[in-house]
């Protein structure tokens, strides 16, 4: 692969859950058509995607792990983080709802119900954005899950974790997009809790810093950012999945002012999805 060829290709590293939702399949062809770039998608674990970015093997990242994203930019590996869209996490559980989570009011109560019933909970356990989010929720609920036998740390991707939870009939936390796209394969699971504002799940897009590595297609990355935040594309994001699932999988939020580049410590912007 020589230099000129490299520059006609954009390497997008993302998480498997983002890719599995099918959103990229819908949007990227439009981008390719418009810009003439070819986009190659590497769908891997969150940590791995960040690492690929840190090694200079991708031109742009699309992930959902806010803390890690900020760190990535602060360490100088990314030029800037752009907010793209969000969806939310849902708490899933067996249809029988053994911990009676459905009657709880807050995610904190929901998790406490699981703990007090010693109901099985399957965690991704892979330090992905979803897993990090889940850990912070347990922290907020003041529950220490380490060393308990009802808490199963799987160390797998979102899809695998949902399949496992479905088979083991456990509770688990997943992003709504992945859950909806796999729902037909998960007869034993249903949403037992949703809507708490702390379940917000923002996605960001970060061009890799061309100053740090040779051979970064920064022009392409910038063009891709412009594409994704464009109004008509944001609209498409909001429409995606409506036909198939009766509700959108993602909500555009490119307009939300992103202050992370100002102080790097900006807490997750709060906007409760209207579901």
């Amino acid at each position, binding site marked *: 692969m020589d230099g000129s060829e490299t520059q006609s290709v954009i390497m997008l590293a993302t998480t498997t859950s983002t890719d599995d939702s099918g959103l990229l399949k819908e949007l990227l062809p439009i981008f390719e058509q418009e810009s003439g770039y070819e986009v190659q998608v590497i769908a891997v674990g969150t940590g*791995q995607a960040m690492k690929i970015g840190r090694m200079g093997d991708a031109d742009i990242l699309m992930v959902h792990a806010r803390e890690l994203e900020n760190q990535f930019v602060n360490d100088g590996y990314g030029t800037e983080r752009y907010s793209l869209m969000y969806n939310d996490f849902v708490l899933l559980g067996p249809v029988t709802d053994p911990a009676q989570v459905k009657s709880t009011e807050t995610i904190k109560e929901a998790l406490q119900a699981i703990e007090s019933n010693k109901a099985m909970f399957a965690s991704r356990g892979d330090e*992905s954005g979803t897993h990090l989010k889940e850990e912070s929720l347990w922290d907020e609920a003041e529950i220490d899950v380490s060393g308990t036998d009802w808490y199963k740390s799987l*160390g*797998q991707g979102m899809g695998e974790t949902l399949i496992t939870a479905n088979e083991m009939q456990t509770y688990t936390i997943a992003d709504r997009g992945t859950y909806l796209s796999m729902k037909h394969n998960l007869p034993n699971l249903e949403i037992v809790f949703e809507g708490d504002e702390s379940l917000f799940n923002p996605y960001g897009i970060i061009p890799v810093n061309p100053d740090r590595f040779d051979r970064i297609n920064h022009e392409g990355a910038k063009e891709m950012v412009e594409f994704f935040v464009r109004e008509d594309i944001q609209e498409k994001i909001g429409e995606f999945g409506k036909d198939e699932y009766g509700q959108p999988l993602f909500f555009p939020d490119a307009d939300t002012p992103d202050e992370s580049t100002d102080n790097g410590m900006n807490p997750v912007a709060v906007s409760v999805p209207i579901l």
Partner: protein
Amino acid sequence: MSSNVLAEGFLEALNLLMSMDPYVMDIIAVSLKVSGTALILAALIGIPLGAFLGLTNFPGKALITALLYTGMGFPPVVIGLFVFILLSSSGSLGSFGWLFTPYGMIMAQSIISFPLVAGFTMTAVMGVDRNLIRQLKSLGATKTQATIATLREARLGVLVSIIAGFGAIISEVGAVMLVGGNIEGATRVLTTAIVLETRKGNFGIAIAFGIILLTIAFIINFTMLRLQNKELSGNE
């Protein structure tokens, strides 16, 4: 950078082994238990079957052989999927409750290693001088006794078939991941731990686990080969 990651991996491996980290020891124990048991099961079926195929002619044998050799390249993840479907609560063996337990993993790994053991045993047996086999029969050996003596003649090949079977499953990840679920403290083995650390971007630790796995495999192979030391002398 690359050398950093490798060096980091080596140090990490040493560190993990030295400190006898219980998390790591547990993973090693599960790996050995699962792959060891699976290998024994595979050998118990594979060696006799391979010997039988190597010593007998029947119509359709070429087909069976091709199937067996194809089985060597049966994608572990597909075998994992089959076993998963079988063991899932709605599957035919769902009532066993083996999914996400070492039993299910053993089942999947036995299926993976069995064609390797059988295929290479067959090849080794077919390499034995046919005159010797005739001579054994003439001396009054039953079919079984002649088969055992033939396996003894082909011992290096049989040993290698076992080593190959072991190598395939101790390093296999697709099936154990799917069937075992990589549950910490229960079904996490070295390879699934490697994948997990890779997904996390912890390449150093991933390589450390890889080194531990290889060290274990090397010690086992070296010991087995020592027992067969004389067989190793070159065919000069």
